[in-house]
């Protein structure tokens, strides 16, 4: 059986400027891959080029096989059949990824109406069920709320509900917790991990925070300046990083997150 997603020599350039340089990786069915890298390392563009949402000025080459079909070079109309149905995406900033003028329930049900042709009434019921699954309080009332009436964590749960509405085979999560408080991150991550496990959805988890990777991913890619510098099982890479950049990232993660016990000891 072939892998769900097979990316080969993916290159994205703007004019002469190469932003993603011959990136190759695979995601198995139900597999969970973390992609780590600093801002500007090409993580997001890699994800966007999988579903063909790169800006018009970008030149994309290489190969993206999804479920045995080549996605690069496909017409936008064909790709939009896949988007939201087979491949869905959760975005970084839940403040801006939801339409401020549309009630939450309508937005959650939008992919279902588009892909499964649900009626308004059926979609409204589905929205309540989805909001319940992602743990929104009082789902039947939450669906009637506007995004600005929800907290950041709740909005991201809405984003996840929307992405998982059609039970996609692959979920791309682009820094889904970066814009959230540290205290809220854990809840959202746990939810994400739970849901993809239950639905057997493959996950492509993009982050700049290496500490989050073992929570949601089995394998990991480390990207820097558009290229992959290290790849392997998440635990192994974190236990024994081989590339100096990975070591640097790990050191940075440890420095910023001192275990609370140590603070207490020093202060007392």
């Amino acid at each position: 059986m072939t892998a769900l997603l097979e990316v080969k020599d993916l290159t994205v350039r703007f004019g002469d400027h190469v932003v993603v340089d011959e990136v190759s990786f695979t995601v198995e069915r139900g597999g969970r891959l973390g992609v780590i890298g600093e801002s500007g390392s090409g993580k997001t563009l890699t994800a966007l080029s999988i579903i063909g949402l790169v800006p018009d000025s970008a030149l994309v080459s290489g190969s993206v096989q999804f479920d045995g079909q080549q996605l690069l070079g496909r017409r936008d109309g064909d790709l939009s059949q896949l988007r939201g149905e087979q491949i869905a995406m959760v975005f970084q900033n839940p403040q801006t990824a939801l339409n401020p003028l549309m009630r939450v329930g309508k937005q959650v049900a939008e992919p279902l109406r588009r892909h499964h042709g649900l009626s308004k009434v059926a979609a409204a019921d589905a929205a309540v069920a989805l909001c319940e699954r992602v743990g929104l309080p009082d789902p039947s009332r939450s669906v009637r709320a506007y995004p600005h009436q929800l907290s950041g964590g709740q909005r991201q749960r809405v984003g996840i509900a929307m992405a998982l509405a059609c039970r996609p085979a692959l979920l791309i999560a682009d820094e889904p917790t970066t814009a959230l408080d540290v205290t809220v991150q854990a809840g959202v991550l746990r939810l994400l991990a739970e849901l993809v496990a239950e639905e057997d959805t493959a996950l492509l988890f993009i982050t700049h925070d290496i500490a989050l990777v073992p929570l949601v991913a089995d394998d990991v890619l480390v990207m820097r300046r558009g290229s992959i510098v290290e790849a392997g099982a998440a635990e192994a890479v974190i236990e024994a990083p081989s590339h100096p950049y990975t070591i640097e990232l790990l050191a940075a993660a440890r420095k910023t997150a001192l275990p609370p016990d140590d603070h207490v000891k020093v202060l007392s």
Partner: protein
Amino acid sequence: MSWVRATARSWSGRVGLVLMAVFLMTVVMSYIWVPYDPRRVGERWLGMSVDHWFGTDAAGKDLFSQVLVGARVSLFVAVASALIAGVVGVTLGVISAITPRVLGESLAYFIDVLIALPTLVLALVLVGLFKGSLVTVSLAIGVSSGVVLARILRAEVAGVLARDYILAAHASGTSTWRTVRRHVLPNIAPIVIVQVSLIAALAILAEAALSFLGVMSRSRPSWGQTLGELQPHVTLHPGAIVFPALFLVAATLGFNLLGDGLRDATDPRLRSGGRGAGGQPTATGVLPDTAVVSPLVAAPPTTTTIAGTDR
């Protein structure tokens, strides 16, 4: 009628609604009861009286009747111009922003060229070429202010298209037209409403100006025409122009203020909570989100060199 209540929440919305109501009632009344035929000649320069509420003009025509019947013209021009401008503006603005570069850019230049034609001058030319009918004037005002609206909307739509929720909509497979309908149009609606109501006010003024100049068909009385006829005598009989002018000002101001109020009412972010759904869901403190304790961070016992300086 929840939008009326929402509009009435702001000061400008309230005044706008009242002025609009007066304006509409004037028009309705003109179809039910008009004291005299507005063209009937009688005794000249009568003051305000029970027989002639607003007095009579130089030809002895009843001013109150002229104001009543003239309101129809203003309403027609306002609504027709606003509709035409809205359709032209939204269509051109949205198309020029979403279509691929070539078509969008050339449309934008076309819009810029059209903007160069001043509304009133274009209207004068069209009225001269065709006849001074209300349809001609509405078309002239509607199209020329529609292209101005298109330019404003082009920038506005481009701004909306750059937002993340548009990308999110694309990522969930929403088609371009559905995206426009569901996400773009609602988000530019407040601007369209304000602009269109400004255009309606402008249309009333423009029609009044053309009638004042006497280039419009004289088949039906309008406020501008009435004011134009009173103008030569304004130093001798200043009182006569007060009421027709007041109505013109009130209608114009009413559209402007109503636009302001509607804009505030259409944006749910500006609405206070507790409307409709019975209050908003609690924002925080409901979800069991707890602090991150990642295995990575917990694993190695960290040295306390940093913590020493940490207060």
